[in-house]
């Protein structure tokens, strides 16, 4: 049974200037009959499936809908059309380092983030030490989170998210965390998870990385699915497309 199945998935939403002009103006525009909502399609008719242990590279220029698609798969967004099935627990590393609280200590943030990722308190009590050790933040446990450097922040985020054994791993441009030594460690950790049989989705602008790691490739352009299939072939076509631009 495929781990991830997407059938004809589309995501669209109403865009308008209402978040900038505000409620008063929208009400006035409605009264005057000038209110015109526009629909924006972020992802259009995407259709693919992945088996266990596969690594899907997602490529496309900026604004192609890559991040939106990852949000749909991780369950944060609901598709407006289409059906999907995602089987297994997901570890999603979308834009590391955001969503932490600068006013709390490293320890408090670690527990809070663990709770958000759906871990239990017992699990956190058990794994807290190894999270801190992996992130190499032993001396900073009781410091305020805002006092950490940005590299330390992403190291912590990575460690919390990766010390579980996920069935599905979602990576959005996160293979470059921290300094050289930690980057090697985080890549090793991720490869360990991938080799352990996790189905992985990887968004990257580095075609080399995709060629090296991916077993399948999905190419998106302006929300449209351009191609899905063999890595080498699609990467070549994408390269040609980029050169032709």
């Amino acid at each position: 049974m495929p781990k991830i199945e997407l059938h004809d998935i589309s995501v669209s939403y109403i865009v308008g200037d209402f978040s900038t002009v505000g409620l008063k103006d929208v009400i006035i525009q409605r009264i005057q009959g000038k209110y015109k909502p526009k629909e924006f399609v972020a992802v259009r008719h995407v259709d693919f499936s992945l088996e266990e242990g596969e690594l899907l590279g997602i490529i496309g220029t900026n604004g192609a809908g890559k991040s939106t698609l990852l949000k749909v798969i991780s369950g944060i967004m609901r598709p407006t059309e289409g059906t999907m099935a995602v089987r297994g627990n997901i570890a999603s590393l979308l834009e590391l380092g955001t969503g932490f609280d600068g006013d709390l200590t490293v320890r408090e943030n670690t527990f809070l983030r663990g709770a958000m990722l759906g871990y239990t308190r017992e699990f956190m009590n058990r794994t807290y030490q190894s999270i801190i050790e992996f992130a190499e933040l032993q001396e900073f446990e009781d410091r305020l989170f805002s006092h950490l450097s940005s590299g330390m922040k992403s190291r912590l985020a990575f460690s919390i998210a990766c010390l579980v054994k996920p069935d599905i791993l979602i990576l959005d441009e996160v293979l470059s965390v921290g300094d050289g030594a930690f980057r090697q460690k985080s890549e090793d950790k991720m490869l360990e998870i991938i080799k352990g049989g996790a189905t992985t989705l990887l968004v990257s602008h580095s075609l080399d990385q995709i060629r090296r790691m991916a077993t399948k490739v999905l190419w998106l352009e302006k929300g449209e699915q351009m191609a899905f299939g063999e890595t080498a072939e699609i990467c070549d076509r994408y390269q040609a497309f980029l050169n032709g631009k």
Partner: protein
Amino acid sequence: MIEAFKQFGLMLKKHQFLFEELVKRDFKKKYKRTILGMLWSLLSPMLQLLVMSVVFSNFFGRDRPHYTIYLFAGNLTYAFFKDSTYGGMNSLMANAGIITKINLPKYMFLLSKNVASLINFGLTLVIFLLFAAIDGVTFHVRFLMLLYPILWMIVFNIGFGFILSALFVLFKDVQYLYDIFTLMLMYLSAIFYYTADYPEHIQKLFYLNPLYVYITYIRNIVIDGFIPGWGTHILCAVYALGALGLGAWIYKKYNYKFLYYM
């Protein structure tokens, strides 16, 4: 209805760890880990009360007993409503960085914020009762009935917070409009004046304001010495369930759409 509550209970159990951690976070942020922070949140309503009673005692409170307690009951309720709904309004946007990255039930953020407000309210309530005792109010078993309006106030504030937080995701000027709204509401809630001074048909109009209903309930019990009638009991519940129902409906319907605008 009962099924919905059951499901809600299950959700809470499932996310209990998250809920506790969020409450801890909101609590720490509110009081900045200082004893003074906690004192300050009690001091500011006290100061307000002091100013109001100095200014208004000569106008409204001259020939009425327990005017300070009368003021306090109004302030207490209004401050709880304001604190809780402002916190609720901001709860989604303030956590946008989390909500757009991790799949979580969004109402958790609003509920944890409400717990912090509730703790504050509880502390002020203790001081209120202390003041009442000093002012010569005799305590009676019917004081237990204070729990009734308080319970519905909690529900009402949560529901109102739901509605506001959803609006705030879409319209960024809601916070300024809400400033004006709360100011008007304060003047309309008979916090420092007496509705008995108005003609009877106007007095009835005050019951359209949920805050006024909750304030009146508390005053009836503490100052006037009686438990209000069935009508007030029903109104307390209707307003609260109305706000919660509308808020829950909005969340259920637009839950996954909030994200596009954060």
